């Protein structure tokens, strides 16, 4: 189930100190568009976003979507994990304006970007 392809949404959270509520709304919007029922979140500690703290109150944990959350030590490890992701399902990167250009170069055109 964890690496299974097919109608899943994978999200890399690369923006620092993201507001979890805002993230939740963006992610759900894309999840609905993807039409799937599985969301994988890739986070890294450099981004200082800890959604586990809020997931207990979050509508992401709503018994409909399967949710897989990775929390890696560094941004490099998070990007590496995303690059290894073999599925061609929807991939969304939430990033800052500063990082956008670098990520556009590094990740190919199949990835959707949203600046937060």
């Amino acid at each position: 189930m964890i690496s299974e392809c097919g109608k899943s949404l994978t999200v890399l959270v690369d923006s620092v100190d993201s507001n979890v509520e805002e993230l939740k709304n963006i992610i759900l919007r894309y999840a609905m568009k993807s039409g799937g029922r599985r969301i994988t979140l890739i986070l890294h500690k450099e981004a200082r976003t800890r959604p586990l703290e809020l997931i207990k109150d979050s509508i992401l944990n709503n018994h409909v979507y399967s949710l897989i959350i990775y929390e890696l030590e560094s941004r490099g490890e998070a990007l590496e994990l995303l690059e290894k992701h073999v599925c061609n399902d929807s991939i969304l990167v939430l990033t800052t304006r500063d990082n956008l250009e670098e990520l556009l170069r590094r990740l190919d055109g199949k990835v959707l970007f949203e600046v937060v």
Partner: protein
Amino acid sequence: MGYEIVLTSDRTMMSNHHGKEFLGFIATGPPIAMPESLWMMLAAPKVKVDDAGRPREAPYGMRKIEAVLRDAGFNAAIIDPDHIDKHLDSMKILMLSHHDYFAYGPPSSEWWSITGMEPINRRSFIRFMNSPVVRKAKEKGVKIIVGGPAAWQWLYELELMDKWGVDTIVDGEGEKVVVELVEKALRNEPLPRYVYVGAGDVPGVNEIPVIKGASVNGLVEIMRGCPRGCRFCSVTLRPLRFIPLEKILAEIDVNIRSGLKGAILHSEDVLLYHADGVKPRPDPILRLHREVLERIGEKRSLAWSHVSLAAVKYAEENHKLISKLMNELVLNEHRRFLGVEVGIETGSVKLAHEIMRAKSSPYPVEEWPNVVEDAFRIMHENKIIPAATVILGIPGETPDDVMKTIELIERLKPYRSIIVPMFFVPMGALKHNAWFLRDHLKHEHIDALLAMYNHTIYWAEDIMNKFYFSEPYHAPLKLLLKYFMGYVRKQVNRYAGRLEEIIKK
């Protein structure tokens, strides 16, 4: 030979509770009127193990995960918590499961709230996680994966998750997740911190394996999920699946081969096995019981985990199914009762309408108090002994709702049963609401607690003497429980009238 993957839990889980499932609930309370060691002995005695430390019987959910891993070819086994040191050299993954890791579930949370003392299950689990063997395992790089019905509680204990080095929380049915997680862990790949298994990823009946070793007190699952949609419950949000009879019987055989003395049929509502919606059908129920009883023979005990009161009433009134089951199949000179858990939750029709509209189905929700009383009468007449729950502090509850609950409890006085209070815990569709704690107790809640206490004390001795502890070897247990009940009775009588003040202190 050591195991690479060790599944375990603390002693409050890894016990057969003297062969009496209900005694396991004692572990949800703090030790009262006796030392902790005696309380543990009463609630959770050690189980028999083999040379490798594998328990003769183990929690059912862990048996399922063990079976999935072994079917996939992994070197995995459930190991008693006192014996995991035997596998320290070989262990690469430690998998934990629990019904109530931190005592945040019902009824632990309310005993904790009322007494102000930490329940035994929490103390025991924390002691286990801090034990030298678990710390040593972590130092050696063993991955720790936690799951089970109380996995959600880790989200409230993220600091402990970091302190103890828990790698992954798996919340939900684990059969389709666990192999992949273990493969990742063994390959040293990054593990997810959290996995929630949504409705679309639960296993189908063909993906649920047959257990390889015996389950605690012979518990065997006959269904998963529940169609009633009660808003305080998380089970009801899972898809409904009926386990095929041949798989049920295969698991009964596993338990019998291990020498267990009984079977517990597990479902959120046993009478809904292959039902027509919420209407029980006699044929599948009778066939299930006939085949199970044929397997377990005349001397082994039989229990149901849960049944709904509406199903009991409907089954008896429309098909005489309860009396047929009990008188023609279950009861004999060795099996003199059948125990089961039931949910009353509230006596208020208004509240029932808001949070559990389908619990009374196929009867209208306005009939809920009558459904409860009729079902209790039917069970009493047929020697089914229910342990019932009532929830206090449901969001939106008014003093009048609590009064209606007290009235209903009083109507149930003639019927052999015990009634246990539960403080509302935010779960299921109501998970965003606040916890009900002792600071929220009002006068009417104290009255409700006393009504349940009076009912339970009234019937407990009768149940203990005539039904529950009939074997001579149960005498010390019976004595200990009688002593405890006597102590509680004395304290309640002594402080009656001042309970509200004392609890809120």
